[in-house]
């Protein structure tokens, strides 16, 4: 597994990619700093909606993870090097899981640090709030990673479909139609955040804590299993 893991780490980290991810991760932090120093403090709800929900969980995190996660398998399929891995005498999950972990390893720190700094600045160092935001951001990364690694394995149009999912499903519909929040990774992460620190985050129309945890586990494991199944049954180029 280690071999696949380090291979994927090398495949997915390029200098420019890392620079762009740093820039993206810095944006919410900037806003939080500005908001803090501005004359009128915006409400927690407003901050949560604009910065945490929309920017961080709704755009930056999924886009960063999409670029990395979909590439994990899609690049191999496109370059026709996947056979190097599938022709090894290892169970298929030992190919999928390290790819997934490598995706999380690369994308995770950017999102986590961004979340940490943003919430630290915005909530004036309140440990519990910071922890809530950071943990839920990381879980969000893990979920998106699982979904997009599977997508990259399954479809040659992974990026287009992933973008559609992020912008239309997560970005648009789930904001308006409450029922869809039960099927939205963004809202699982938000639900977790609320659950971890209920005093700070007033409960809105969100997924309950218990439900969020269960759904997170199901989604993560589900896409992982789907990817393993696909790898076993597909024709490897």
């Amino acid at each position, binding site marked *: 597994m280690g*071999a696949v893991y380090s291979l994927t780490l090398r495949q997915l980290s390029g200098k420019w990619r890392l620079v762009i991810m740093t820039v993206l991760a810095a944006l919410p932090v900037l806003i939080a700093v500005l908001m803090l120093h501005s004359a009128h403090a915006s409400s927690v709800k407003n901050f949560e909606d604009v910065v945490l929900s929309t920017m961080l969980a709704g755009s930056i995190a999924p886009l960063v993870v999409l670029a990395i996660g979909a590439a994990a398998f899609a690049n191999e399929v496109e*370059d*026709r*090097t996947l056979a*190097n891995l599938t022709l*090894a*005498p*290892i169970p298929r999950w030992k190919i999928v899981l390290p790819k997934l972990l490598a995706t999380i390893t690369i994308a995770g720190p950017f999102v986590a640090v961004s979340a940490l700094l943003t919430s630290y600045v915005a909530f004036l160092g309140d440990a519990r709030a910071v922890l809530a935001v950071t943990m839920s951001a990381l879980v969000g990364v893990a979920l998106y990673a699982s979904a997009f690694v599977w997508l990259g394995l399954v479809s040659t149009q992974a990026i287009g479909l992933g973008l559609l999912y992020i912008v239309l499903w997560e970005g648009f519909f789930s904001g308006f139609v409450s029922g869809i929040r039960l099927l939205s990774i963004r809202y699982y992460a938000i639900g977790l955040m609320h659950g971890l620190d209920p005093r700070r985050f007033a409960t809105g129309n969100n997924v309950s804590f218990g439900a969020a945890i269960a759904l997170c586990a199901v989604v993560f494991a589900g896409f992982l299993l789907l990817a393993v199944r696909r790898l076993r049954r597909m*024709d490897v180029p």
Partner: protein
Amino acid sequence: MMAPAAPVIRVDGVSRWFGSVVAVSDVTFDVTPGITGLLGPNGAGKTTLLRMMTGLADVSSGSVKVFGQSVRDNPPLYQRMGVMSEHESVYGFMKGREFVRMMAKLHGMERIDEAVDRAIDLVDLADAQHRPMRTYSRGMRQRMRLAGTLVHDPELLILDEPLNGADPRQRVHFKRLLQKLAAEGRTIVLSSHILEEVEELADTVLLIVNGKLAASGEFHAIRAALNQRAYHVKVVCSDPRGLASAAVGLSSVDAVHVDPDGGVLILSRNVLDVQVELPRLAQAGGISLRRVEPLDDSLESVFGYLVEG
């Protein structure tokens, strides 16, 4: 007397279709230790067949068994197999040695450095092993890939067009290497569309044409069988029917066809005789010959015999 050893690979009634296109059609054969060559024109289905034999692709019907087990969805089997696909793409950023090391690790080898050194020496790339593979020439890439395929010392080697793009010196080296490996008791299956390569290397030849197994066995025996067949000579002249009826009278002619477009097709096992007699017949009948073409010198027509036969 001992029972014959079980074949290393048993392909039984295997077909593969993609939608309405049949790539491989009802192929059955056994592969035993030594070098087996899969020969056929491009697009004949060799690669599809090899991919099914390695478990990379699924069969539409039939079964493929390697070492007595189904090869599909059976990762432990890869411990004993080394496969090199036709795609030349490599991880450009990796150094050659790193690539072979990775392959060794993936195959769970223990004394990795030893095995890697041995594999790289076998392909004679020790000086280039510390350079990234994107700086390699095409031939070097093939060789390094071969090293990656050999590093875990597999009993069975399946190589798809391994001599693609190799220069003459590399070809010689490669051939010697394969012969040495086969002499050690391994089973090697390699595919090629080049007649001479397969002729030199393979003990057994499997001829694939249009997805079907058209001939199998020892190369020269197949060639001899071909020689038993009638050759085709196509004649274009001013009086097809007249020439045809005269040609039928020759003892060296097996059969005569007259095409709707006016061409005459003469089947004979003694072309030399036909070449001599034909002009005489034409002159006697006052027929002018426009074209006389033996149709048999291209590879396709060699394959063609076997398919129609």
